[in-house]
């Protein structure tokens, strides 16, 4: 695989920084399975098998087919990783009263990126960074409607690498729901390397949903770094109806008493998909809670990976951490690999994890068939039931509707093993 990475920048300072990061990246290269964090996902191999070349040339953006969601919402539109426009009219308030949004700049990015400088994907992101946004939600503001991030990929993106990032700061007592809606209508293979930095101040609350509209044939790596202060609350929901390659890392630091971090995921993987969810939840203060529930439905030779870690510091007494990962393997070519990890240094804690994988339970299937339900329908019901525990966590009916709609489209499974 040929790497054609060119660096340009307006200021000397940031140019130097980019160069330094690029040379670090070049030394390390793309991560491969010899690295513990990439044990089940050999990115180097995946990329070299699918790309003859990777470049970061600027391409002309093609206007996307606008795909508005039907319910009332605010919106931020990204095209090929760059901030295109935003619209917060639904809130019916002067913008400056409740939020600030900027095109991303490298200086702001650096404040956050510094901590992750050992991650070569971060090095690459800093070196080739080309856009994104910075969103600051002001104190005490509670959003009436969700914010939808329309994340479009359009035009010919052959062999393109897109490095972008987003930063979201939730000030004290603020509350928001963000839905990242990925719409990939591009032509040609691309690789998106994106970093997200999310900060929640005291009593803030954020629900972050990731939904991809339709199956994508492209390659995505996302790293989210989330830090929570006292009494704050962060929930992340990952729903995907399949992508060729995806790795979603969430690094959640519970750095204030009574803070709570949750990760839920329902993935439906199709032909030769490879998707990984990796979490690292760090309990650094007492009385914090974390909850993870990961459900993967795997079909047609797809590969699902879950690496989840719960770390409990010695001062983080009264921690309550739970983690569940389940894989439903629908045919014999699919694969589910997990590494649920606990690292615990405090004794007055309740930490547990569970992990299962297997096919559709034959007895459940028999039960339904005995009641006159056709096999296809019965399987659909079981798959829905499997994802239920994750779906029921969603309080917002509009979002549940989108998801159910997606799943109905995607559950086309025919029992091939019989």
């Amino acid at each position, binding site marked *: 695989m040929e790497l054609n990475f060119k660096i340009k920048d307006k200021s000397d300072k940031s140019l130097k920084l980019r160069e330094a990061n690029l040379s670090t990246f070049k030394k390390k290269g793309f991560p491969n399975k010899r690295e*513990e964090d990439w*044990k*089940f996902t050999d990115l180097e191999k995946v990329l070299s098998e699918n790309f003859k070349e990777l470049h970061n040339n600027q391409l002309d953006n093609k206007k996307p087919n606008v795909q508005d969601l039907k319910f009332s919402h605010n919106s931020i539109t990204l095209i090929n990783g760059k901030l295109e426009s935003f619209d917060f009219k639904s809130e019916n308030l002067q913008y400056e009263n409740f939020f600030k949004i900027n095109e991303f700049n490298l200086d702001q990015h650096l404040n956050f990126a510094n901590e992750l400088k050992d991650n070569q994907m971060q090095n690459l992101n800093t070196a080739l960074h080309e856009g994104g946004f910075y969103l600051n939600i002001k104190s005490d503001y509670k959003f009436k409607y969700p914010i939808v991030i329309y994340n479009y990929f359009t035009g010919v993106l052959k062999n393109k690498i897109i490095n972008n990032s987003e930063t979201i700061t939730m000030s004290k007592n603020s509350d928001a729901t963000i839905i990242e809606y990925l719409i990939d209508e591009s032509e040609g293979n691309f690789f998106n390397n994106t970093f997200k930095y999310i900060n929640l101040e005291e009593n803030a609350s954020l629900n972050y949903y990731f939904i991809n509209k339709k199956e994508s044939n492209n390659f995505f790596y996302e790293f989210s770094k989330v830090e929570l202060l006292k009494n704050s609350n962060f929930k992340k929901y990952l729903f995907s109806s399949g992508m060729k390659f995806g790795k979603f890392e969430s690094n959640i630091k519970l750095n204030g008493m009574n803070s709570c971090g949750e990760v839920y995921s329902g993935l439906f993987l199709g032909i030769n998909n490879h998707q990984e969810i990796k979490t690292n939840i760090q309990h650094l203060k007492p009385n914090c809670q974390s909850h993870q529930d990961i459900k993967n439905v795997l079909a047609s030779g797809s590969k699902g990976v879950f690496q989840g870690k719960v770390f409990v510091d*010695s*001062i983080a*007494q009264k921690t309550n951490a739970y983690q569940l990962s389940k*894989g439903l*393997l*629908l*045919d*014999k070519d*699919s*694969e*589910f*690999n*997990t*590494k*649920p*990890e*606990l*690292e*615990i*240094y*405090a*004794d*007055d*804690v*309740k*930490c*547990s*994890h*569970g*992990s*299962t*994988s*297997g*096919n559709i339970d034959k007895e459940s299937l028999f039960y339904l068939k005995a009641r006159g339900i056709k096999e296809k329908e019965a399987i659909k019901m079981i798959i829905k039931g499997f994802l239920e525990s994750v779906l029921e966590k969603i309080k917002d009916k509009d979002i549940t509707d989108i998801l159910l709609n997606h799943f109905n489209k995607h559950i086309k499974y025919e029992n091939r*093993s019989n």
Partner: protein
Amino acid sequence: MSTKVIDSNKEYKYGFTTDIESFKAPKGLNEETIKFISREKKEPKWLLDWRLKAYKRLKSLKEPNWQKPKYPKIDYQDLYYYSAPKSAKEKPKSLDEVDPKLIETYKKLGIPLDEQKRLSGVAVDAVFDSVSVATTFKGELTKKGIIFCSISEAIQKHPELVRKYLGSVIPITDHYFATLNSAVFTDGSFVYIPPNVRCPMELSTYFRINASQTGQFERTLIIADKGSYVSYLEGCTAPMRDENQLHAANVELVALDDAEIKYSTVQNWYPGDEQGKGGIYNFVTKRGACKGKNSKISWTQVETGSAITWKYPSCILQGDNSVGEFYSIAITNNYQKADTGTKMIHLGKNTKSKIISKGISAGKADNTYRGLVDINRKAINSRNYTQCDSLLMGNKCGAHTVPYIKNKNSSSIIEHEATTSKINEEQLFYCNQRGLNQEEAVSLIVNGFCKEVLQQLPMEFAVEAQKLVSISLEGSVG
């Protein structure tokens, strides 16, 4: 081993630092040492070549460093790789010279004074005693065609068996410590159970290891031929007073069609003192291959000793319908560290495995369960169940669970669960209320916590193991 550790260990006054050069191969790891070992043991040429091949490979290997417990760099050139049984001179002359804490432990274990002497190496004839233990039954074993002897003896008397199976489960191309063992192993035991024979008694290495004192690199090979059964015990119940040292043994098990091997270990090597000085680095490779159909290998371990325990007794389930089991208790106190678990590799159809692991961490110790369950594409209808529970006592210790779970086939089912918690206060209160003091109550609850594993041990062992569990945690409460 770093000089720091050696220096600090001198404080133990075990009397082991005496000059006994004449009984040892010269220090250092090189071809000469390996040839020396081979010559001393009058080994055939194929074995020497095998060792040298392993050594050649070793030179290109690096020590693994992914484990949780880190240790000071080991100077492999500063170790002795061969030492013949030491003469009485180097041993403590009377019980008075033995650390009183050891004696106390023996008393608590209920080992009679005679045995105490033997275990502390005071009586020279301990060696002979233990040999006679084996020979007492030798007649009975031979009648059934069972071979139970040291591996050196087996190399002389049964070379065809050794040659066929040695390295068949742990090849010389394995990881660093296993390969090191292949190059320099000195002794160990060998068991062969002929077809359709059920070994009438439990075979044990309890005394032999204690007596030999040189077994830093033992090699054990157990072969259960078609339809046979054997239960093998490995006891290191007496704290070894060996120098602060590397213990890198290899244990290979081979189970052919319908055979069953049950391997139980109670490991209580010297764990170092309360300050974490000294102790054994127990870096052992144990692996069993269920080569035949319907075969079964079951590992049970109670790990209470060693400064660092780093081992993963594993099962390769090659034969269809084969079964692998792993039951483990790992207790760490003071500055002890353990990184242990198992690997269950499912290759055959309808293979089953079960893992029950109980980790208890107290003081400033670190306890890690690390395990792999790998169900291959062809291992259809396979099944695994894993349960890992950890108990923490105090907030200066750590408990970690790192399972790797791979399922490559939809007809197989894997279940894994793990919990971490402290001792339930209500249970403690209940016991206290009924007149048990804190320590007794904790010991009772911990024994209950470990029950599923203790039940797997043969009776004599189970009693000892229970006591050991209580002793290991002494002083960690309140």
